[in-house]
């Protein structure tokens, strides 16, 4: 077959492409799921009764090569308990202007408190808004969870929590939270 003139061969490529599968994603109208292990926004996880897993140890901050994480620990008290054990993370900030999504923080976390979600929409027109605070990062309260501060399940230790022996909040914990809510009102 004789070769097409150069001008036409260009059109031929265009014509062929019209019948190929389209790779363009119609973001933001259509959001395509990421790969399951994509490094997206972080999440601070909870134990099944709602207590936070974070112990404020700052190992994530230490591991971070971009210095994107700031943690300040504090002591749990009988009146105000946020995590099992003695210590919890009082201040927890991740600066997404700095975060490079490498996931070293996840590896450093000794309690699996910090994991990454697949959420990738980390852009804004305000730098301040890209510093995520603890309340922005905490995982949602699922069924059976009570928002801290509240006491641990009676008769358990932080080791029991760690070993997965606590599976949901007890009625006492719900009652306690309710009492605190009413006292707050």
């Amino acid at each position, binding site marked *: 077959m004789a070769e097409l003139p150069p001008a036409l061969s260009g059109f031929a490529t265009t014509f062929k492409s019209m019948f190929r599968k389209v790779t363009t994603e119609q973001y933001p109208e259509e959001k395509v799921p990421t790969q399951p292990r994509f490094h997206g926004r972080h999440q601070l996880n909870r134990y099944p009764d709602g207590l936070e897993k974070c*112990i404020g140890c700052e190992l994530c901050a230490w591991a971070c090569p971009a210095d994107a994480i700031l943690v*300040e620990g504090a002591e749990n008290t009988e009146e105000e308990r946020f995590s099992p054990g*003695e210590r919890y993370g009082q201040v927890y900030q991740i600066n997404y202007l700095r975060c490079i999504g490498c996931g070293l923080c996840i590896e450093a976390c000794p309690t699996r408190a910090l994991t990454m979600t697949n959420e990738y929409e980390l852009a804004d027109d305000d730098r301040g808004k890209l510093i995520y605070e603890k309340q922005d990062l905490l995982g949602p309260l699922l069924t059976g969870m009570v928002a801290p501060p509240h006491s641990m399940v009676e008769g358990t230790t932080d080791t029991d929590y760690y070993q997965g022996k606590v599976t949901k909040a007890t009625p006492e914990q719900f009652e306690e939270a309710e009492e605190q809510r009413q006292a707050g009102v």
Partner: protein
Amino acid sequence: MTQVVENKETAAQDLITCTIDDIEIQVPKDTLIIRAAEKLGTYIPRFCDHPALAPVAACRMCLVEIEGMPKPQPSCAVTLSEGMKVRTQLTSEIAKGAQEGVMEFLLINHPLDCPVCDKGGECPLQNQAMSDGRPDSRFEIEKRTFDKPVELSTEILLDRERCVECARCTRFSEEIAGDKFIEFLERGTKQQIGIAEDEPFNSYFSGNTVQICPVGALTSSAYRFRSRPFDLVSAQTTCEHCAAGCNLRTDYRRETVMRRLAWEDKNVNEDWNCDKGRFAFAYLKDKRVTRARVMGQAALLPDAVEYAAQELTKHKGKVGVLTGGRLTLEDAWSYSKFTRVALKTNNVDFRNRPHSQEEAEFLAHSVAGGIITATYKEIESAPSVLLVNFEPEEESPIVFLRLRKAVANKKTKVFAITHLETKGLTKLGSKNILVRPGDETKLVRDALAQWSNNTNNLIEKLHSQISKPGSIIFVGERAAVIPGLLSALVELSTATGAKLSWIPRRAGERGAVEVGLLPNLLPGGRVTTDEESVAEIAAIWGVDVKDLPHTRGLCAEEIIDAAISGEIKALVLAGLEIKDYPQPAKLLAALEKVEFILSLSINESDLTQKADVVLPVAAVTEKAGTFVNWEGRPRPFGKAMTQNKSLSDSRIISMLADAMGHDFGPLTTSDIRQDLSALGVTARNQGKAPKYQAGLIPSLGDNQMLLSTFNQLIDDGALQAGEPHLAGTRRETVAKINAAAAEKLQIKNGETLTVTTSTGSITLPVEICQVADSVIWLPTNSAPSSVRQILNAHDGSVVMVSKGLNA
């Protein structure tokens, strides 16, 4: 922790030759293996070993192989002998195996909570488990657990699971501090540190145990979970709390001080510091003056300075300057220069406490001019030390530690002329001569005149001891109010050859004396009335000698009186507390009367509320400076928080002077240090020795007693504000009287009594102990015992004492 093998000049015959890891080494006799190995650069792992504590071989981590010995030996407790062949973990499988075995045992019950442990990241156990332990553990059974944390005191918390039973804390408390509050309880696996049930670990030195704990077993409430070691920026600083001049490590995170630690200085604080120096720093953050104010309204700094300068110019010559005892040497220098050159007066006094003309003369004669009388090192070699109106543990705790070390070495005997026996004096094994306030002068003079005929054996003994070369007399700031005492002590010192050292309570007092923040003194020990001295200073300051005042100025008390009578029209105040003054009510009256008050202050106080112009100044961590400690040793420190923009007192004074038409230059620290080095000292300029006679003790009526009072180390001082954990370890606030007085009042231990003067009364529980006859002791500034504020009284004042709530 670094260790130094004592570099004594050792004669050749005292050296022995031995080998460590096949390396031949010569060391002085009685050198511990672990120290000799350090000299070679070999670090043998250890927990219990601490160079300042006696060997105990409790942790067994430092096992080494010694040729000829059947089993590995602890290198921290075995001294080298001639020809000994030692093999450490570097060359011996036996030593390495032994150390790994010990580490494995230590870790069996040690919890894996490093992420939440305050020691994590700077933990010898963590580090040495990595460097000298087995790679994995063979124990999979459950660890022993204890309840935690246990409160040993409000400040010190114990986590028993983490303890490796090295006994550093108990040995420190017993050997160094002399406070046997903590001890091992139980046996075997249950062995644990503990306290007696009703006796918390309220030692003034308890914080040191947290620092030397090689694991996270002892932690402090104040620092608990506040940060991790890798967050902290460390700076070398000097403690601002007392005249000891401790070398400190200040750790801060994001411009906030997180903790302070003792930093080794063999010449001063050795490895230790006191709890006040360690924990009392909340004032750096709380209630700061952040903006300049004029008449209560926030103002720009240049405007406020301009206004203050106008007002001060208006009252030139009629201004009093009260600076307090907390300024750095450099800032004190600036105040001194500003007062003389810009304000044209000698009305300046740093003494915001009971003081006297005699004291000012004594300071000019025996202290000012960079005189180094005694040093910490000399305490250790002194055959005897006489303490006069000075309670070392309460008023200068590091001096107390040195004294205790000297006494423990059995070289030094301590005598005290005191109003009462105290815990500190008892721990020093002090021979106490109890006197009533006012009788000290007579005692010193009598004893001086006829030592041998004295009926009092103790005084005779004191005389023979104090005459031995190298003896030291320590006198505290309280001697100022006892007429003739300082004069008598100067005589005693001259007659016996004993060194006379003045130990003030505050960090800036000695420096203030050196730069002449006194009505009778110019910088460098020059007196204000000596023409030549004034000329020398005028030359250094670059002013005409005629522009400097040539007369003695007014002391603090006179300034306050003059302000009340209207002769002084304006006051310049630097970092003061009203309640420090002998008669706070009078100071308040003076503040009401004067036309203008300028206050340069770190923190807000009742005093800044009364000032017309308030200027914020930098605290110690925000500027460079120098504190001169009681020895006369300069203790310079750099700016810890390098990002901080606060201005020091000196920089503000430079602006003030500029606005008043005097060019002082920028008065940076380095400028001032240059001026100070040009100062020099000439003995000719020394003031004359004070010659004062003893006062008369008033005759006491029924229910009347003489007051004795001093500040306890941990009390209501302004710099200790905002630290409840520290405040919880303070000694109990009690009045102390002797058994005879108790009988007269028909009062028992623990019952309350009331002390009354014309201005108010204080009710306290009573403790019956060894106090001089008809003397009652009260803590000066421990609520509810605010002696100066409520009673307007000081040592030797007559007070009414009655049983129960009120007379």
